[in-house]
């Protein structure tokens, strides 16, 4: 011991960036212990014997001449039972354990193992002595929470014969379950594995996404769906509801696992998730949402380099669960803070800046991140299918979508949910603009909607969308000359678009009934609204005055059905349909003779 330890010497300190000389043998992205207080850092540049290091903790008090010690390992995460329901900081330190060690404020230089080392898990071993196992193969399972079966896998790169296999039983995570022997050597297989965060975990092949990630949010599921394995960007200025939208997705998306990264955002928002998720119940399983959620919290006042790392920590954990054959949804709030962390560190390194001070490699970093999403065939003989859907919030300065992070994100995501300040100001939530947003998954998912919801679904969506865009044109006219001058058929479009906006697109995150809306309910609602339009339109073309149609309670019923009909009482739509039919049948009868007259 001590002989092969690499120790360098600090010679410059500038905020989170420090420089070291005599750094012989340091690797790029190696984790190092900086100074006498052993702060965690990572090597981000090497030049001759000198190394540049970003430090994941506050650097006050560090002095030139203090030692910097190499650890011989890359910045990695520990993957195994105990991840779910936990809150980690950007470099996977468990925040509750830190609280026990250092109190309510985060002291410097404290470390804690990411996963509980003492907890004994009920392990079901599925491999027999002498069996041939392959990389990625599931060798044991642990019921980590009532919602998630944690599948222990052979780490990537290892295949061979299973030896000294332990029987099923209660084990801690550092128990050696078995050895896998091949020509090279015998590999210890524990309940956990580690993986460097900046290296994507391998898989067999990329598959085309063909199934939507159902979010229960009408504007998303109906108009701008994201597929399982897809990518989406949510840009919006402050106060437009990015975080609420992200929270809604984390709550209701039909994924097996949710990884939520609070990257440089508010502490109170993370606390809200922490307090709320254990109480909220998954509508599909009836279990608390926390039983499938992992949180990465690196709030805005925590060190900036750990913020940079938090995105990678999160996505590596997501990949690990994907490799088990799960659908994972990852929310990153906000990727702009991550990009700003890159800019800040780049500035301290005195690199030549590109647009708005961001480093020139910003777009490639964004691309690398979003490309780690996808639906894949996982490693292992079982041919498991897993997916990661990535939903990144973007916080454009001044709400200006032409800034670098938004424009680069747009290039690499296939779904763009633009949040609109004027909608947010009118408290129209979710304030996703139906005119500026788009989803490239619409056509790929048509088949799924036809098969699982209704063959008419895509047609209805297209019809509703065209009404909304006609309405947008008409609104320009209304702004200039008022609604009264429009002919009745155009007035009808404006009124029906109004019903779609208020009765369909608006959805309250705080409503017990409407916070989550089943896709079948979405379809029924849309069908009735468009039925109202079609039959009204027929009457108007016959010359019936629009005032005849807008009288009566039927409009009120259509606007309020989102709140009045719960997800499990969809048969009630039949009654509204009957009401609609009666209303129009009687009008038809009343104006029957007009047709004859003409």
């Amino acid at each position, binding site marked *: 011991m001590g002989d092969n330890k690499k120790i360098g010497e600090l010679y410059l300190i500038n905020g989170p960036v420090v420089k070291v000389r005599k750094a012989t043998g340091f690797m790029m992205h190696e984790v190092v212990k900086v100074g006498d207080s052993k702060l965690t850092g990572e090597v981000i540049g090497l030049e001759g014997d000198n190394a540049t290091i970003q430090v994941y903790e506050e650097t006050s008090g560090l002095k030139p001449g203090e030692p910097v010690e190499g650890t011989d390992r890359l910045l990695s995460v520990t993957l195994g039972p105990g991840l779910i329901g936990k809150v980690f900081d950007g470099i996977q330190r468990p925040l509750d354990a830190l609280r026990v060690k250092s109190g309510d404020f*985060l002291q410097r230089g404290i470390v804690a193992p990411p996963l509980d080392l003492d907890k004994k898990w009920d392990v079901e071993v599925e491999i027999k002595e002498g069996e041939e196992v392959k990389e990625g193969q599931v060798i044991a399972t642990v019921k980590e929470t009532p919602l998630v079966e944690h599948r222990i896998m052979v780490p990537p790169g290892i295949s061979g014969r299973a030896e000294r296999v332990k029987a099923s039983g209660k084990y801690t995570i550092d128990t050696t379950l078995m050895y896998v022997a091949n020509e090279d050597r015998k590999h210890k297989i524990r309940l956990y594995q580690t993986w460097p965060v900046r290296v994507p975990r391998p898989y067999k092949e990329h598959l085309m996404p063909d199934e939507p990630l159902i979010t229960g949010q009408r504007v998303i599921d109906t108009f701008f769906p994201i597929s399982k394995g897809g990518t989406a960007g949510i840009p919006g200025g402050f106060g437009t509801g990015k975080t609420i939208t992200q929270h809604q997705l984390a709550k209701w998306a039909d994924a097996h696992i949710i990884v939520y990264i609070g990257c440089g955002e508010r502490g109170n928002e993370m606390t809200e998730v922490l307090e709320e998720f254990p109480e909220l119940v998954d509508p599909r399983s009836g279990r608390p949402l926390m039983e499938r959620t992992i949180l990465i919290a690196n709030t805005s006042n925590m060190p900036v380099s750990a913020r940079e790392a938090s995105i990678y920590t999160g996505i590596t954990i997501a990949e690990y669960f994907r490799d088990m054959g799960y659908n994972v949804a990852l929310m990153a709030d906000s990727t702009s803070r991550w990009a700003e962390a890159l800019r800040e560190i780049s*500035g301290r390194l005195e690199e030549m800046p590109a647009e708005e*001070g961001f480093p020139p490699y910003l777009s490639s970093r964004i691309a690398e991140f979003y490309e780690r999403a996808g639906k894949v065939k996982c490693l292992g003989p079982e041919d498991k299918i897993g997916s990661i859907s990535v939903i990144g919030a973007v916080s454009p300065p*001044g709400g200006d979508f032409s800034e670098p992070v938004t424009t680069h994100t747009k290039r690499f995501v296939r779904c763009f949910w633009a949040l609109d300040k004027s909608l947010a*100001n*009118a408290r129209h939530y979710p304030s996703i603009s139906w005119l500026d947003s788009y989803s490239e998954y619409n056509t790929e998912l048509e088949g799924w909607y036809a098969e699982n919801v209704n063959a008419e679904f895509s047609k209805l969506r297209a019809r509703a969308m065209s009404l909304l865009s006609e309405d947008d044109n008409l609104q320009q006219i209304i702004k*200039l000359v008022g609604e009264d001058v429009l002919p009745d058929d155009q007035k009808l479009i404006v009124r029906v678009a109004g019903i779609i906006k208020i009765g369909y697109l608006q959805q309250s995150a705080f409503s017990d009934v409407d916070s989550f809306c089943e896709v079948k309910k979405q379809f029924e609602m849309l069908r009735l609204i468009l039925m109202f339009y079609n039959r009204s339109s027929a009457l108007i073309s016959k010359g019936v005055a629009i005032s005849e149609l807008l009288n009566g309670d039927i409009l009120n019923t259509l606007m309020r059905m989102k709140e009045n009909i719960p997800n499990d009482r969809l048969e009630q739509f039949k009654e509204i349909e009957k009401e609609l039919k009666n209303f129009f049948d009687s009008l038809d009868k009343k104006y029957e003779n007009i047709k004859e007259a003409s």
Partner: protein
Amino acid sequence: MPLKEYIGLSRINGPLIFIENVKNVGYNEVVEVSYRGQTKLGQVVQISDEFAVIQVFQGTEGLAVDTTRVKFLGKPLEVKVSDEILGRTFNGIGQPIDGGPEIISGTYRDINGLPMNPSSRMYPRNFIQTGISAIDGLMTLIRGQKLPIFSGNGLPHDRLAVQITKQAKLKGEKAGNFAIVFSAMGIKHDDAQFILSNFEESGAIENVVTFLNLADDPTIERIATPRVALTAAEYLAFERDMHVLVIMTDMTNYCEALRELSTFRGEVPSRKGYPGYLYSDLASIYERAGMIRDREGSVTQIPILSMPNDDITHPIPDLTGYITEGQVVLDRALHRKGVYPPIGILASLSRLMKDGIGEGYTRKDHPHLSSQLFAAYSRVQEVRALASIIGEEELTDIDRRYLRFGEAFEREFISQGFDEDRSIEETLDLGWKLLSYLPSSELTRVSEAELKEHYKEIKR
């Protein structure tokens, strides 16, 4: 350990001094710079084994390269805190300037504090009644929140801040362990005087701690002022169990000091010359609001900033809005109309309001009512725009009713006296009264039951 003292500098550049060949000095360490019997405080902002860069808080006026002495104190910038600070006035780096004695007992605290562990935070839910309808009804202030006032030059943000501090109380709780920390950065003497004399009048002065850095005080000192103030606030809140309201004004001056320093350091500028780390730096201030599980006290922040040229997309309000939990935006057009407080409803927001209002907090109908008022007032803006083109006579009946609602809303709801303290019930009832200008078919945000209970249509 003996303190290290060096004589002579190698260079002076604006507020920065450079010293060569210093040994055993830490990053962020505090230094005493003395020249001709005068002493100033400074801080190490960059250090290598060849040189140290020091920012001098009180400016470098009068320093000479060859004879200035620099003493490294081996600790970060600290402030002494104890119960004795209540009722006292300090300068921007925490030294008493009210002629009173030095703070005798107490402990020294690093002004930078430490980040609160997100797992230790308690989500704020307690509604603070400010007695101001626009705020209580539509952008409710919650204990432990950071809710800035975005203002402009010549707008009455100081009056509003004073009115909030005078009237703020928890529903059903008596005053008592309540303290105000007032942190002034680069504001005018008159403004500071106005705020302080009002505290005095209200009898709250024994519970006020004041940190003053006025417009003619050294600029660089401002960088420490909010941190010193928040260190005092955290002590009072989390160790003395007090509910602390921190007023910080004007954050724009703080950011400008930061830009000045950054420029002298030769850093790569980001938007409008502000440093790339402005977001992180502001976050290290604003995130020091909140509540902690199993502790009594709380830190609530009301930072005030003036938007340069009333531009809300300027980096300072923009980055602030991304960190704080909402914003109260003052509106020049309302101010011209004579509305006090001129709160621009649509641009304002309280993010924590949703969990601190409604049944058990304020009143059951509050969430829907506020949403409806926002929606209706937003429609008013559209109708006004239309009316300005086609004339009021051409408007539909409904649109005309919106106009009347809008006028009444500004005159009766937003507008109120400087000494008028409305209870939350009064505010909510007033909201319903105004909604009655509109027909019930327009009120889609409230439930039918709520309509039945509170709504009485006013027919013309």
